[in-house]
């Protein structure tokens, strides 16, 4: 080997603050207050409750194809809770429900979207999130532009953009990181490495020993964090957000976690997921970890869990009632937001469809 070859990216041990048993690592100050921790736990549990209910609704045909968060709750909640929803933005892929809720999206709107109702595509004004992105990685350049624009206008805002290990193979990832490095955009690249892109395992996605190491090639820091550790994810994200806010530019965070369910409701993971690997992640459940930690500090017990679960179940049901009460989709929705001022050809098409179908 050449004397001067750039050092190989050695495997990195992810930053961990809470052990799987919920024990705080020695010398670590918790990155969240008790209230924040309890709020974070609640949001993680809400997501889990939603996943279960939505899956059964989907099986009944009352909900569209969607992707569960199960297993990745700490990764999403820990990062999103480092933001100030009033000035910061979340740019999601599609598996980040709790981040959207944390920013202020009503759960019923999210449901509406997955029920196939275009009204669900409208994010209420003042809720700083972009629409769910289906075209993988396309959101990353957009997030950089948004962060850059916030910076130019000196709003103090920071953008956290989520994307998967799979999406990180797209050219858009590279172009976006590279531009962000040059203009020092206040953006945090949150790479959710959940081990899979549908059936493609992480090791077939890239030969890099860590995906965070790519940050070197863009001139900003990268970090690997235990994505099932709420406190650790929160800590690194908070630091990255602070860096961004103070003008030091982007950070790439690789959050190492695991997709505990199917890719989405149309997927059959038994065809490809290694059962042993899946088993090995079960004891690392991010929700249980926080519950154990809080229990060790007498802030949590089984009664409390049951109460909260009942409340959350009611909350999801209530959101479903709201979503269901929304008027059925109409043909007119198809035409209302194509252009500010529809050209005459489109007006004629609208008239023909609406005359014909409604």
């Amino acid at each position, binding site marked *: 080997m050449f004397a001067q070859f750039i050092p190989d990216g050695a495997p990195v041990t992810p930053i961990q603050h809470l052990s799987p048993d919920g024990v705080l690592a020695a010398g670590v100050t918790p990155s969240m207050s008790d209230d924040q921790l309890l709020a974070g736990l609640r949001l993680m549990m809400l997501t889990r409750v939603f996943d279960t209910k939505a899956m059964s609704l989907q099986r009944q045909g009352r909900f569209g194809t969607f992707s569960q968060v199960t297993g990745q709750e700490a990764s999403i909640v820990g990062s999103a809770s480092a933001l100030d929803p009033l000035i910061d933005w979340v740019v999601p892929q599609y598996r980040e429900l709790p981040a959207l809720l944390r920013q202020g999206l009503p759960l019923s709107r999210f449901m509406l979207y997955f029920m196939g109702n275009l009204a669900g595509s409208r994010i209420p004004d003042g809720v700083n999130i972009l629409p769910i992105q289906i075209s993988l990685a396309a959101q990353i350049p957009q997030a950089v532009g948004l962060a850059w624009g916030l910076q130019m206008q000196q709003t103090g805002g920071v953008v956290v953009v989520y994307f998967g290990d799979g999406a990180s193979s797209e050219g858009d990832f590279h172009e976006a990181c590279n531009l962000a490095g040059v203009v020092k955009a206040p953006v945090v690249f949150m790479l959710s490495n959940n081990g899979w892109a549908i059936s*493609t395992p992480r090791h077939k996605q890239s030969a890099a020993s860590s995906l965070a190491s790519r940050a070197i090639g863009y001139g900003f820091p990268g970090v690997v964090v235990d994505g099932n550790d709420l406190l650790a994810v929160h800590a690194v994200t908070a630091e990255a957000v602070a860096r961004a806010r103070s003008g030091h530019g982007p950070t790439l965070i690789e959050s190492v976690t695991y997709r505990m369910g199917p890719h989405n409701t149309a997927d059959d993971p038994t065809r490809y997921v290694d059962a042993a690997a899946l088993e090995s992640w079960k004891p690392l459940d991010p929700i249980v970890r926080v519950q154990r930690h809080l229990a060790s500090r007498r802030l949590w017990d089984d009664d409390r869990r049951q109460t909260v679960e009942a409340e959350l179940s009611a909350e999801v049901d209530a959101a479903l009632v709201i979503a269901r009460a929304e008027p059925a989709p109409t043909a007119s929705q198809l035409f209302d937001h194509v252009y500010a001022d529809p050209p005459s050809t489109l007006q004629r098409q609208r008239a023909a469809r609406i005359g014909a179908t409604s």
Partner: protein
Amino acid sequence: MSTVTEPVVGTATMNMVEAIRDALTLEMARDERVVVLGEDVGVLGGVFRATDGLQQRFGERRVIDTPLAEGVIIGASVGLAISGLIPVPELQFLGFGHQAFHQIGQQVARFRFRSQGRHPMPITIRSPFGGGVRTPELHSDAFEALYTNTPGLKVVAPADAYDAKGMLLAAIRDPDPVLFLEPLRGYRLVSGEVPTGDYTVALGRSKVVREGEHVTVIAYSAAVQLCTKAADVLAAEHGISTHVVDVRSLVPLDVEGIVAAVEHTGRVVIVHEAPLTSGFGAELAATIQREAFYSLEAPIERVTAPDTPYPLGGTEDFYVPQVDDIVRGVLNALER
């Protein structure tokens, strides 16, 4: 129109996805140079199972799960072809062909020309497209017309299982690149008797799927089935006899066959799922008015999606042309 290249053993009922898988299996067995690559085509066998079983049978070297990057799936296919292989890359959905658009439009389609014949591109890009099955955003768009303004590329879109198998075999054997479009909706819905052996259906030929006298309806892919249903309604409820033509091959286009079908009735309705403006119906109408001008008794109608993005599932039926829309289009064409 179709060539049976070795004794057809028999026939079996297959849906379109089975017919496609059958073609891939046959051709991989016959020609060692054929490699299949794409997102989730290997272990999973494709999100629609079109490549199911291929990796078990032909190994990981010939059926390859790639990283998630359409540009390099197609770009690497260019290099694989130059090295002497016959790549059959899959775009998981045609909506994600946009990510590879530069490699398809500027490279795959033009490499024979750019190298003045030295490097042909015997690449078949398979991709599902079209709507009607309530997929997430961008999974259902009918972007076929974009690829028809791309000289050097062939674009085909079979509507039934027989053609799917025979045209896929023809496409893989074609020395030029072919974008092979598979109807999402037809994968399991459309089935028919298919020879179990080897046969090809020549690219560049349309086919008349229903004979009729009053009006000619022209479509391709999933829309063909809608047109034959509309023809049933027109016959039963309006006493109208409809001639239905399946274009099958957009590039090259069977101008002669289509003109003959138009001259047969003098009235034309074109149906596709893509938006109206600059959809492939535009090319069909422009060609027909030029080549069959004096046979036309009424303006050519286009029954298409409106000029809007593809919506979410709940609004889909207002977007994708339905049987009723085709019936109305035909009545319009006959009124004028």
